[in-house]
């Protein structure tokens, strides 16, 4: 049963070519055999937008298609998220930046406001019922917190095992969460900025074509110091990003003192 090799060093070696693709990297080009997922098509309209509230910008970062992002928004600061390419789901989780056991709670958020959708004025509440952030600006009809995040595992249920190797939002949450000491048990039901999940009269529920457009924005005022995790959804099997993953822009501003929020 046991096979031993007399002289592995002298063994003639024949490898079979593995297909490769050339990718653009910050350093130039890289030839790689990794089956990386799609990014937006050439010529896709991109609108980078501006902060939704007046004030001094303290952070301004881009989230590449398929990538993850995290940052702390201090109490009183406003985070503007720009849907640069339109209908790009920004899967989002929030945590009390100082005690991450306190984190975003979809059921508390919905029950307190007696409505299934997030709109201007929605208070994004924690699992302790406290306000983490408030939606102070919103340029699409309604935002989703029912549809959850895609994952390698749930993709096998939705589409089949042939897509299990595709990148997913739960992968992004694990990657980004690990930078803050967060793991599997810290991933809870999330918000999906710019994603459309209607609940129809007969209870039918699902992700359908979005209502957003390039440059549409949402603005969130932090009520306490809030750690924000974002997965720029890489899903290529449903319309949560128009089947065309585009960037997001994250802008944190210190709003002007005389600024009156909508909410």
């Amino acid at each position, binding site marked *: *049963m*046991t*096979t*031993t*090799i007399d002289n*592995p*060093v002298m*063994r003639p*070696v*024949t*490898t*079979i070519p*593995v297909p*490769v*693709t050339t*990718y653009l*990297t*910050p350093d*130039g080009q*890289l*030839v*790689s*055999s*990794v*089956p*990386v*997922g*799609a990014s937006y*098509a050439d010529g896709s309209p991109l609108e980078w937008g501006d902060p939704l509230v007046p004030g001094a910008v303290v952070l301004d970062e881009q989230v590449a298609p*398929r*990538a993850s992002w995290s940052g702390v928004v201090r109490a009183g600061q406003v985070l503007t998220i720009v849907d640069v390419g339109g209908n790009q789901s920004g899967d989002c989780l929030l945590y009390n930046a100082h005690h991450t056991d306190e984190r975003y709670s979809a059921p508390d958020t919905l029950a307190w406001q007696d409505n299934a959708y997030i709109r201007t004025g929605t208070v994004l509440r924690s699992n302790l019922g406290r306000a983490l952030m408030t939606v102070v600006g919103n340029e699409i009809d309604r935002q989703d917190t029912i549809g959850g995040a895609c994952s390698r595992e749930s993709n*096998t249920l*939705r*589409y*089949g*095992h*042939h*897509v*299990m*190797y595709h*990148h997913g939002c739960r*992968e*992004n949450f*694990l*990657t980004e969460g690990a930078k803050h000491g967060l*793991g*599997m*048990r810290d991933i809870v039901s999330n918000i999906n900025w710019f994603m459309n999940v209607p609940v129809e009269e007969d209870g039918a529920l*699902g*992700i*359908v*074509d979005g209502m957003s457009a390039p440059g549409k924005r949402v603005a969130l005022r932090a009520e306490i110091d809030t750690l924000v995790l974002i997965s720029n959804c*890489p899903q*290529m*099997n*449903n*319309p949560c990003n128009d*089947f*065309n*993953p585009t960037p997001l822009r994250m802008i944190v501003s210190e709003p002007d003192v005389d600024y009156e929020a909508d909410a």
Partner: protein
Amino acid sequence: MAPVADHSTDTVLNARADARAQGGQVSDWMPYLPASTSPFCPDDVDPESLTWAETVAPGSYTHKVLARGTRFRLEDPTGEACAHTLVYNALEPTERLNVADTQKIPWQAYLGAGHPLLSGDGRVLATILTDTSGRHDAFCGTSTAAWNALRYGTALPEGPAPAGRDLFVKAAAKHGLGPADVPPSVSFFQGVRVAEDGSFDWFGSSGAGTSVELVAELPLIVLIANVPHPRDPRPEYIVGPLRVHAWRTPETTPTTPADERFDASPEVRRAYLNTLDYAEARGL
């Protein structure tokens, strides 16, 4: 891969139909369920005995909890795979692969047939039963994001050059384990040898079609990241698909005193004794 536009997803019913139309497809890298349907079942294995069958994509990872006594075989169909591997006692994952003991206790740096994968608790987590490659490594561990950024100019987990450690962190998370639970790993199918001056000589692959087969001496959490060896000298990020098959039959038992390898050395004998003692006490 270009974005796909031919979808009708304006209503929930249309979105459902669109999603369901994608079922039943196959890809080059996927798990096969049930495992008995694997198109790549090894010739000497009864497909009905398979408990895990999967082709791992280049730059991807897999993980599984295996019953004690399970045989698992890793195959490198192209000669370009590199199976960075970690094993944990599934019952008490603080017991995990200890690479230092794995090299030191058997008095042997290079992994091959008969080599035990030891935990830090004096027990054998898995034994390498067969090896047709002979090109493995227990010195260099797997790649980190910092290393890949240096080597390839990028290391994003979703990009063309993911780091092995970042894949391990995600695989570990799916078993309740955190970044601190990812210890040094071993890798199969790409070898290095220590030169006289201590430098690592790159021996690379032993060619297409080789395999290693292991037996789970305890219930195991197995994590595998399929990424290039950190000392792979090529400027390209090249790694081939990895095949994984695991199976269990009445004959596939953990190592017992009846097996020749139980007494292969005084050290390994005591390691097997410790393992059996633990299993007996736990009622395994």
